[in-house]
Protein backbone atom coordinates (compact mmCIF):
# COMPACT_ATOMS: atom_id res chain seq x y z
CA UNK A 1 0.00 0.00 0.00
CA UNK A 2 1.44 3.43 -0.89
CA UNK A 3 2.35 5.58 2.07
CA UNK A 4 -0.02 8.35 1.04
CA UNK A 5 -3.09 6.12 1.05
CA UNK A 6 -5.35 5.79 4.06
CA UNK A 7 -4.98 2.37 5.67
CA UNK A 8 -7.91 0.01 5.40
CA UNK A 9 -9.81 -0.16 8.68
CA UNK A 10 -9.32 -3.91 8.88
CA UNK A 11 -5.53 -3.60 8.79
CA UNK A 12 -3.21 -2.74 11.60
CA UNK A 13 -3.65 0.96 12.35
CA UNK A 14 -1.90 1.90 15.55
CA UNK A 15 -1.42 5.67 15.20
CA UNK A 16 -3.39 6.39 12.05
CA UNK A 17 -6.82 5.92 13.55
CA UNK A 18 -6.51 5.74 17.32
CA UNK A 19 -10.24 5.18 17.61
CA UNK A 20 -10.11 1.98 15.57
CA UNK A 21 -8.89 -1.07 17.50
CA UNK A 22 -6.04 -2.45 15.41
CA UNK A 23 -4.80 -5.99 15.06
CA UNK A 24 -1.91 -7.02 17.24
CA UNK A 25 1.66 -6.79 15.90
CA UNK A 26 3.50 -6.62 19.20
CA UNK A 27 6.50 -8.35 20.65
CA UNK A 28 4.76 -10.76 23.01
CA UNK A 29 4.89 -14.22 21.48
CA UNK A 30 1.73 -16.01 20.47
CA UNK A 31 2.37 -18.77 23.02
CA UNK A 32 2.29 -16.22 25.82
CA UNK A 33 -0.80 -14.42 24.60
CA UNK A 34 -3.06 -17.16 23.28
CA UNK A 35 -4.63 -17.83 26.66
CA UNK A 36 -8.13 -16.69 27.47
CA UNK A 37 -8.38 -13.13 28.70
CA UNK A 38 -11.10 -13.53 31.28
CA UNK A 39 -10.00 -10.66 33.52
CA UNK A 40 -8.45 -10.47 36.99
CA UNK A 41 -10.33 -11.79 40.06
CA UNK A 42 -11.89 -8.34 40.52
CA UNK A 43 -13.94 -8.88 37.35
CA UNK A 44 -15.08 -12.38 38.34
CA UNK A 45 -17.84 -13.50 40.68
CA UNK A 46 -17.08 -13.84 44.36
CA UNK A 47 -16.86 -11.99 47.68
CA UNK A 48 -15.87 -8.35 47.37
CA UNK A 49 -12.82 -8.42 49.66
CA UNK A 50 -11.54 -11.67 48.20
CA UNK A 51 -11.78 -10.31 44.64
CA UNK A 52 -10.04 -7.07 45.64
CA UNK A 53 -7.26 -8.73 47.62
CA UNK A 54 -6.55 -11.43 45.01
CA UNK A 55 -6.33 -8.83 42.25
CA UNK A 56 -4.00 -6.66 44.34
CA UNK A 57 -1.81 -9.67 45.13
CA UNK A 58 -1.72 -10.65 41.47
CA UNK A 59 -0.68 -7.20 40.29
CA UNK A 60 1.96 -6.77 43.00
CA UNK A 61 3.51 -10.26 42.98
CA UNK A 62 2.65 -11.77 39.60
CA UNK A 63 2.06 -8.88 37.18
CA UNK A 64 2.95 -10.88 34.08
CA UNK A 65 0.23 -13.46 34.63
CA UNK A 66 -2.29 -10.86 35.81
CA UNK A 67 -1.91 -8.62 32.77
CA UNK A 68 -1.79 -11.60 30.41
CA UNK A 69 -5.26 -12.44 31.69
CA UNK A 70 -6.57 -8.87 31.87
CA UNK A 71 -9.29 -8.05 29.39
CA UNK A 72 -8.22 -5.36 26.99
CA UNK A 73 -11.74 -3.92 26.75
CA UNK A 74 -15.06 -4.45 28.49
CA UNK A 75 -15.84 -1.13 30.11
CA UNK A 76 -13.90 1.32 32.21
CA UNK A 77 -16.22 1.08 35.21
CA UNK A 78 -14.93 -2.07 36.95
CA UNK A 79 -11.21 -1.19 36.79
CA UNK A 80 -12.02 2.42 37.73
CA UNK A 81 -13.85 1.22 40.84
CA UNK A 82 -10.89 -1.00 41.75
CA UNK A 83 -8.40 1.83 41.35
CA UNK A 84 -10.65 4.22 43.20
CA UNK A 85 -10.96 1.91 46.20
CA UNK A 86 -7.20 1.25 46.39
CA UNK A 87 -6.33 4.91 45.91
CA UNK A 88 -8.94 6.13 48.35
CA UNK A 89 -7.88 3.74 51.12
CA UNK A 90 -4.24 4.72 50.63
CA UNK A 91 -5.19 8.39 50.55
CA UNK A 92 -7.19 8.21 53.78
CA UNK A 93 -4.34 6.42 55.58
CA UNK A 94 -1.86 8.98 54.26
CA UNK A 95 -4.09 11.83 55.45
CA UNK A 96 -4.29 10.25 58.93
CA UNK A 97 -0.49 9.90 59.08
CA UNK A 98 -0.09 13.54 57.97
CA UNK A 99 -2.60 14.72 60.56
CA UNK A 100 -0.80 13.16 63.50
CA UNK A 101 2.62 14.14 62.21
CA UNK A 102 1.60 17.77 61.70
CA UNK A 103 0.06 17.80 65.19
CA UNK A 104 3.41 16.58 66.56
CA UNK A 105 5.48 19.10 64.56
CA UNK A 106 3.17 21.98 65.47
CA UNK A 107 3.53 21.09 69.16
CA UNK A 108 7.34 20.97 68.86
CA UNK A 109 7.77 24.27 67.07
CA UNK A 110 4.50 26.20 66.46
CA UNK A 111 6.15 29.12 64.68
CA UNK A 112 8.15 27.15 62.10
CA UNK A 113 5.35 24.75 61.26
CA UNK A 114 2.54 27.26 61.17
CA UNK A 115 0.14 26.36 58.34
CA UNK A 116 -2.51 28.44 56.55
CA UNK A 117 -5.04 25.93 57.86
CA UNK A 118 -5.07 23.91 61.08
CA UNK A 119 -4.34 20.16 61.00
CA UNK A 120 -8.04 19.25 61.14
CA UNK A 121 -8.93 21.53 58.23
CA UNK A 122 -5.97 20.19 56.28
CA UNK A 123 -7.13 16.63 56.93
CA UNK A 124 -10.62 17.43 55.67
CA UNK A 125 -9.24 19.21 52.58
CA UNK A 126 -6.83 16.37 51.87
CA UNK A 127 -9.58 13.74 52.10
CA UNK A 128 -11.93 15.87 50.02
CA UNK A 129 -9.37 16.17 47.26
CA UNK A 130 -8.69 12.42 47.02
CA UNK A 131 -11.59 11.50 44.70
CA UNK A 132 -10.95 14.43 42.34
CA UNK A 133 -7.21 13.83 42.20
CA UNK A 134 -7.69 10.08 41.63
CA UNK A 135 -10.08 10.59 38.72
CA UNK A 136 -7.79 13.21 37.24
CA UNK A 137 -4.67 11.06 37.68
CA UNK A 138 -6.22 7.94 36.17
CA UNK A 139 -7.46 9.62 33.01
CA UNK A 140 -4.68 12.19 32.53
CA UNK A 141 -1.95 9.66 33.36
CA UNK A 142 -3.46 7.05 31.03
CA UNK A 143 -3.77 9.68 28.31
CA UNK A 144 -0.13 10.68 28.58
CA UNK A 145 0.98 7.04 28.56
CA UNK A 146 -1.19 6.20 25.57
CA UNK A 147 0.15 9.22 23.67
CA UNK A 148 3.69 8.11 24.44
CA UNK A 149 2.87 4.59 23.21
CA UNK A 150 1.41 6.05 20.02
CA UNK A 151 4.60 8.07 19.58
CA UNK A 152 6.74 4.96 19.86
CA UNK A 153 4.36 2.83 17.75
CA UNK A 154 3.64 0.71 20.79
CA UNK A 155 -0.14 1.19 21.04
CA UNK A 156 -1.51 -1.94 19.41
CA UNK A 157 -4.81 -1.71 21.26
CA UNK A 158 -7.04 1.24 22.09
CA UNK A 159 -6.90 3.72 24.94
CA UNK A 160 -9.15 1.61 27.15
CA UNK A 161 -6.43 -1.06 27.35
CA UNK A 162 -3.86 1.45 28.59
CA UNK A 163 -6.39 2.86 31.03
CA UNK A 164 -7.10 -0.59 32.50
CA UNK A 165 -3.39 -1.26 33.03
CA UNK A 166 -2.77 2.10 34.70
CA UNK A 167 -5.75 1.82 37.00
CA UNK A 168 -5.07 -1.77 38.09
CA UNK A 169 -1.37 -0.97 38.57
CA UNK A 170 -2.00 2.14 40.59
CA UNK A 171 -4.93 0.80 42.58
CA UNK A 172 -2.72 -2.07 43.77
CA UNK A 173 0.59 -0.27 44.33
CA UNK A 174 -1.11 2.64 46.12
CA UNK A 175 -1.71 0.31 49.06
CA UNK A 176 2.08 0.05 49.52
CA UNK A 177 2.02 3.61 50.86
CA UNK A 178 0.16 2.34 53.92
CA UNK A 179 3.49 0.97 55.15
CA UNK A 180 5.03 3.73 57.27
CA UNK A 181 8.48 5.03 56.44
CA UNK A 182 9.30 3.25 53.18
CA UNK A 183 5.86 2.82 51.63
CA UNK A 184 5.99 5.84 49.34
CA UNK A 185 9.49 5.00 48.14
CA UNK A 186 8.52 1.39 47.48
CA UNK A 187 5.51 2.53 45.45
CA UNK A 188 7.63 5.03 43.52
CA UNK A 189 9.88 2.16 42.41
CA UNK A 190 7.40 -0.70 41.96
CA UNK A 191 4.48 1.18 40.33
CA UNK A 192 6.41 2.01 37.12
CA UNK A 193 7.76 -1.55 36.97
CA UNK A 194 4.28 -3.04 37.21
CA UNK A 195 2.93 -0.54 34.68
CA UNK A 196 5.70 -1.34 32.19
CA UNK A 197 5.05 -5.07 32.49
CA UNK A 198 1.31 -4.50 32.22
CA UNK A 199 1.55 -2.29 29.15
CA UNK A 200 3.89 -4.68 27.38
CA UNK A 201 1.53 -7.65 27.84
CA UNK A 202 -1.75 -5.81 27.43
CA UNK A 203 -0.74 -3.66 24.48
CA UNK A 204 1.29 -6.51 22.93
CA UNK A 205 4.35 -4.35 22.64
CA UNK A 206 7.99 -4.66 23.60
CA UNK A 207 9.26 -4.01 27.11
CA UNK A 208 11.50 -1.29 25.66
CA UNK A 209 8.63 0.70 24.17
CA UNK A 210 6.53 0.26 27.30
CA UNK A 211 9.48 1.39 29.45
CA UNK A 212 10.06 4.45 27.24
CA UNK A 213 6.38 5.38 27.45
CA UNK A 214 6.40 5.14 31.25
CA UNK A 215 9.86 6.45 32.15
CA UNK A 216 10.27 9.39 29.75
CA UNK A 217 7.37 11.43 31.21
CA UNK A 218 8.68 10.72 34.73
CA UNK A 219 12.19 11.81 33.73
CA UNK A 220 10.92 14.95 31.98
CA UNK A 221 8.86 15.87 35.05
CA UNK A 222 11.88 15.48 37.30
CA UNK A 223 14.13 17.47 34.94
CA UNK A 224 11.67 20.34 34.77
CA UNK A 225 12.08 22.05 38.10
CA UNK A 226 8.48 23.14 38.38
CA UNK A 227 7.44 19.55 37.93
CA UNK A 228 10.22 18.37 40.23
CA UNK A 229 9.18 20.86 42.88
CA UNK A 230 5.58 19.75 42.83
CA UNK A 231 6.60 16.10 42.78
CA UNK A 232 9.17 16.54 45.57
CA UNK A 233 6.73 18.38 47.81
CA UNK A 234 4.14 15.68 47.30
CA UNK A 235 6.66 12.89 47.96
CA UNK A 236 8.16 14.55 51.03
CA UNK A 237 4.78 15.45 52.45
CA UNK A 238 3.59 11.91 51.92
CA UNK A 239 6.78 10.41 53.31
CA UNK A 240 6.82 12.63 56.39
CA UNK A 241 3.20 11.85 56.97
CA UNK A 242 4.04 8.15 57.02
CA UNK A 243 6.89 8.39 59.55
Amino acid at each position, binding site marked *: *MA*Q*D*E*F*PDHHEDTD*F*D*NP*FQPPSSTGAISATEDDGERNGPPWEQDGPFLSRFWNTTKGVLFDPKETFLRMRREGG*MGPPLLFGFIGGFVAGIVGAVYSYFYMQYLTTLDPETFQQ*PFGPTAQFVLQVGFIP*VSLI*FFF*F*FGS*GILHLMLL*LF*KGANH*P*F*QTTFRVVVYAYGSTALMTIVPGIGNLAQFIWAPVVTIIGLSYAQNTSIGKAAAAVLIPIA*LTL*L*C*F*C*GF*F*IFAVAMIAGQLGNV
Partner: protein
Amino acid sequence: MRATLRHSVPGEVDHERIWGWIIAGLFAAGLLLREVQWLRPFSCLVREATGIPCLTCGTTRAIDALLQGRIGDALRFHTLAAIGFTAGFAYLVYALSATHLRLRRIRIELTHKEATWVRWSIPIVLTLQWVFLIIDGR
Protein backbone atom coordinates in the same frame (compact mmCIF):
# COMPACT_ATOMS: atom_id res chain seq x y z
CA MET B 1 -5.46 13.48 6.50
CA ARG B 2 -9.14 12.68 6.52
CA ALA B 3 -11.61 14.24 8.95
CA THR B 4 -15.06 12.73 9.41
CA LEU B 5 -18.09 13.67 11.46
CA ARG B 6 -20.07 10.93 13.14
CA HIS B 7 -22.19 10.32 16.21
CA SER B 8 -20.70 8.36 19.09
CA VAL B 9 -21.35 4.63 19.08
CA PRO B 10 -22.88 3.00 22.20
CA GLY B 11 -20.17 1.22 24.16
CA GLU B 12 -17.41 3.35 22.61
CA VAL B 13 -15.12 5.27 24.95
CA ASP B 14 -16.51 8.81 25.10
CA HIS B 15 -13.27 10.70 24.58
CA GLU B 16 -14.92 14.10 24.31
CA ARG B 17 -16.62 13.68 27.69
CA ILE B 18 -13.44 12.42 29.38
CA TRP B 19 -10.95 14.90 27.97
CA GLY B 20 -13.37 17.81 28.05
CA TRP B 21 -13.76 17.45 31.81
CA ILE B 22 -10.05 16.74 32.33
CA ILE B 23 -9.16 19.97 30.51
CA ALA B 24 -11.81 21.85 32.47
CA GLY B 25 -10.21 20.52 35.66
CA LEU B 26 -6.75 21.59 34.47
CA PHE B 27 -8.00 25.10 33.72
CA ALA B 28 -9.68 25.31 37.13
CA ALA B 29 -6.48 24.14 38.85
CA GLY B 30 -4.48 26.69 36.86
CA LEU B 31 -6.79 29.50 37.90
CA LEU B 32 -6.50 28.41 41.52
CA LEU B 33 -2.69 28.43 41.29
CA ARG B 34 -2.80 31.97 39.88
CA GLU B 35 -4.91 33.25 42.75
CA VAL B 36 -3.46 31.37 45.72
CA GLN B 37 0.11 32.66 46.08
CA TRP B 38 1.30 30.10 48.63
CA LEU B 39 0.48 27.26 46.26
CA ARG B 40 2.87 28.60 43.60
CA PRO B 41 6.41 27.22 43.28
CA PHE B 42 9.14 29.84 43.41
CA SER B 43 11.12 30.82 40.32
CA CYS B 44 12.96 28.20 38.28
CA LEU B 45 15.96 26.91 40.21
CA VAL B 46 17.16 24.91 37.18
CA ARG B 47 17.79 28.24 35.48
CA GLU B 48 19.33 29.78 38.56
CA ALA B 49 21.61 26.78 39.12
CA THR B 50 22.68 26.08 35.55
CA GLY B 51 21.88 29.26 33.64
CA ILE B 52 19.77 27.20 31.23
CA PRO B 53 15.98 27.53 31.32
CA CYS B 54 13.94 24.34 31.38
CA LEU B 55 11.48 23.61 28.58
CA THR B 56 8.50 25.00 30.49
CA CYS B 57 10.17 28.31 31.38
CA GLY B 58 7.80 31.13 30.57
CA THR B 59 4.65 29.01 30.50
CA THR B 60 2.94 30.88 33.33
CA ARG B 61 3.86 34.27 31.87
CA ALA B 62 2.63 33.18 28.43
CA ILE B 63 -0.74 32.12 29.81
CA ASP B 64 -1.03 35.30 31.91
CA ALA B 65 -0.33 37.40 28.80
CA LEU B 66 -2.84 35.40 26.77
CA LEU B 67 -5.55 35.94 29.38
CA GLN B 68 -4.80 39.70 29.24
CA GLY B 69 -5.09 39.71 25.45
CA ARG B 70 -1.36 40.28 24.83
CA ILE B 71 -1.02 37.63 22.15
CA GLY B 72 2.37 38.77 20.87
CA ASP B 73 3.84 38.71 24.36
CA ALA B 74 2.30 35.29 24.99
CA LEU B 75 3.90 33.86 21.85
CA ARG B 76 7.23 35.38 22.80
CA PHE B 77 7.15 34.07 26.39
CA HIS B 78 6.36 30.51 25.32
CA THR B 79 5.03 29.79 21.84
CA LEU B 80 3.99 26.20 22.49
CA ALA B 81 2.26 27.07 25.76
CA ALA B 82 0.30 29.89 24.11
CA ILE B 83 -0.74 27.68 21.19
CA GLY B 84 -1.44 24.73 23.48
CA PHE B 85 -3.56 26.80 25.85
CA THR B 86 -5.60 28.21 22.97
CA ALA B 87 -6.02 24.77 21.39
CA GLY B 88 -6.97 23.32 24.77
CA PHE B 89 -9.63 25.96 25.26
CA ALA B 90 -10.99 25.36 21.75
CA TYR B 91 -11.11 21.62 22.40
CA LEU B 92 -12.84 22.22 25.73
CA VAL B 93 -15.61 24.19 24.02
CA TYR B 94 -15.95 21.53 21.30
CA ALA B 95 -15.85 18.58 23.70
CA LEU B 96 -18.40 19.88 26.19
CA SER B 97 -20.69 21.01 23.35
CA ALA B 98 -20.44 17.68 21.55
CA THR B 99 -21.09 15.79 24.78
CA HIS B 100 -23.99 17.76 26.17
CA LEU B 101 -25.63 18.86 22.91
CA ARG B 102 -25.13 15.37 21.41
CA LEU B 103 -23.38 16.76 18.36
CA ARG B 104 -21.47 14.64 15.88
CA ARG B 105 -17.86 13.97 16.80
CA ILE B 106 -14.82 14.85 14.74
CA ARG B 107 -12.61 11.89 13.93
CA ILE B 108 -9.29 12.36 12.18
CA GLU B 109 -7.42 9.68 10.27
CA LEU B 110 -3.84 10.01 9.17
CA THR B 111 -1.98 8.18 6.45
CA HIS B 112 1.17 6.27 7.37
CA LYS B 113 3.28 9.10 5.99
CA GLU B 114 1.43 11.75 7.97
CA ALA B 115 1.61 9.66 11.17
CA THR B 116 5.38 9.28 10.75
CA TRP B 117 5.69 13.01 10.12
CA VAL B 118 3.76 13.75 13.35
CA ARG B 119 5.91 11.31 15.34
CA TRP B 120 9.11 12.99 14.22
CA SER B 121 7.84 16.55 14.46
CA ILE B 122 6.93 16.38 18.17
CA PRO B 123 10.47 16.01 19.56
CA ILE B 124 11.80 18.40 16.89
CA VAL B 125 9.31 21.13 17.80
CA LEU B 126 9.97 20.66 21.53
CA THR B 127 13.73 20.94 20.92
CA LEU B 128 13.28 24.06 18.78
CA GLN B 129 11.16 25.65 21.52
CA TRP B 130 13.81 24.90 24.11
CA VAL B 131 16.61 26.25 21.89
CA PHE B 132 14.57 29.44 21.39
CA LEU B 133 14.18 29.86 25.16
CA ILE B 134 17.95 29.47 25.62
CA ILE B 135 18.83 31.88 22.77
CA ASP B 136 16.22 34.38 23.97
CA GLY B 137 18.22 34.64 27.18
CA ARG B 138 15.59 33.67 29.76
